[in-house]
């Protein structure tokens, strides 16, 4: 690897200052799984690495029913996948985290790093968008909260300013009688996704009727896509297999995949349709079993 200056600030404030001071040549590093691989391949050549692992308090998971789940950006994927409360109440997020890379990668990679890398095939962004998560971004003297929609700006590009840092991930508790599912089509056990689908459905008080729906498709565009039309098609309806099929077709209609080694654009579109259908069935089944 090429040489770089390495700094371990002890506070977020200092980290932001360093990013500003070395704007254009500094990169933030946490788990390093994506960044170091890109540096080795010389896809990025930062002159300064700012490691935020020494900043305290960024590796916590906490939950309160009213404010929901809070995840620090330095929390590693293994902890998200294994966390009992996340598995029970935010199951699709635990499923997404357990699908990232390989076990060793999940021991290294962080939630914040995964989101800020903004890989179009990343696993966490579709899951968190489906759960309507918010991201807290900080820079000296300023704090803002954005949705995943706003955060993911383009391929490998976020809305973060040069000296801004993702400080926390906030996930609201899904409504009662909800069920979620995260499904990923991949060629091998540790490959990136061909397509991903995250779905969250809420049962109405009327039996068999869907009250709320959120569907996200991933890896079929620059960033995860919220399939609004498909979700609206489900709300207020009884979820028969036909209605689910129609919603899946609507969602797949929003996919804008590009052809690559993982498949042609048509193939990915078709797989998006099939995986939305499966995810909706699974989410509905789970919603039916929850109160």
């Amino acid at each position, binding site marked *: *690897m090429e040489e770089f200056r*390495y700094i371990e600030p002890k506070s977020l404030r200092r980290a932001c200052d360093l990013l500003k001071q070395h704007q254009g040549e500094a990169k933030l590093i946490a788990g390093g799984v994506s960044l170091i691989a890109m540096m080795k391949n010389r896809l990025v050549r930062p002159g300064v690495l700012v490691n935020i692992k020494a900043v305290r308090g960024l590796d916590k998971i906490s939950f309160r029913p009213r404010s929901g789940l809070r995840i620090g950006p330095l929390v590693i994927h293994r902890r998200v996948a294994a966390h009992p409360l996340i598995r029970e109440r935010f199951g699709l997020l635990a499923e997404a985290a357990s699908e990232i890379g390989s*076990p060793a990668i999940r021991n290294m990679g962080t939630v914040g790093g995964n989101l800020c890398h903004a890989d179009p095939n990343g696993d966490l962004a579709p899951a968190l968008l489906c759960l309507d998560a918010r991201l807290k971004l900080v820079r000296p003297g300023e704090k803002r909260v954005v949705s995943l929609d706003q955060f993911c700006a383009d391929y490998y590009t976020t809305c973060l300013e040069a000296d801004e840092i993702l400080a926390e991930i906030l996930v609201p508790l899904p409504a009662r009688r909800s069920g979620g599912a995260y499904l990923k089509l991949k060629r091998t056990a540790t490959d990136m996704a061909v397509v991903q689908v995250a779905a969250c459905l809420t049962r109405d008080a009327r039996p068999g009727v869907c009250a709320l729906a959120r569907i996200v498709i991933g890896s079929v565009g620059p960033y995860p896509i919220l399939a609004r039309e498909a979700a609206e098609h489900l709300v207020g309806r009884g979820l028969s297999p036909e209605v689910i099929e129609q919603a899946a077709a609507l969602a797949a209609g929003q996919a804008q995949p590009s052809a690559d080694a993982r498949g042609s654009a048509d193939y990915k579109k078709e797989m998006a349709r099939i995986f939305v259908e499966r995810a909706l069935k699974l989410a509905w089944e789970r919603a039916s079993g929850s109160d």
Partner: protein
Amino acid sequence: MLVAFQLNGEPVELEIKPNQTLLEVIRRDRALTGTKEGCGIGECGACTVLLDGWPVRSCLTLAVDVRGRQVATIEGLAQGVKLHPLQESFIKYGAIQCGFCIPGMLMVAKALLDEKPKSTEQEVRAAIAGNFCRCTGYVKIVEAILAATEDLR
């Protein structure tokens, strides 16, 4: 930078450059060449070592980042001349062909058995999912790990 950490249970203190990976330090500075470099970008698992007991890719780990932590490599697995039960099992089941992936395989297997001594076949397969073997087809590796779980019970 002077970095102190535990390497196979022994305290070490090394002068490390920020751009050195843990793999480079283990192999070049410490001459522990059991840990292999395969792809160099975290895909293949040949460089897997344990950091505080958990498998990580040493090719993607900055060596300066292991300050104060416990690093375990394949060289620390046997107790003197007495092989670890996993190593015995790999030999017994013929799980080794060219051998290049084996240090990584053994380290993830050790982490799995330390965490979950009664692992099922599915858990064994999930644990080695990130470790490529281009010779064996994995069957004998899985058998060897499963047999070691029996022995350790």
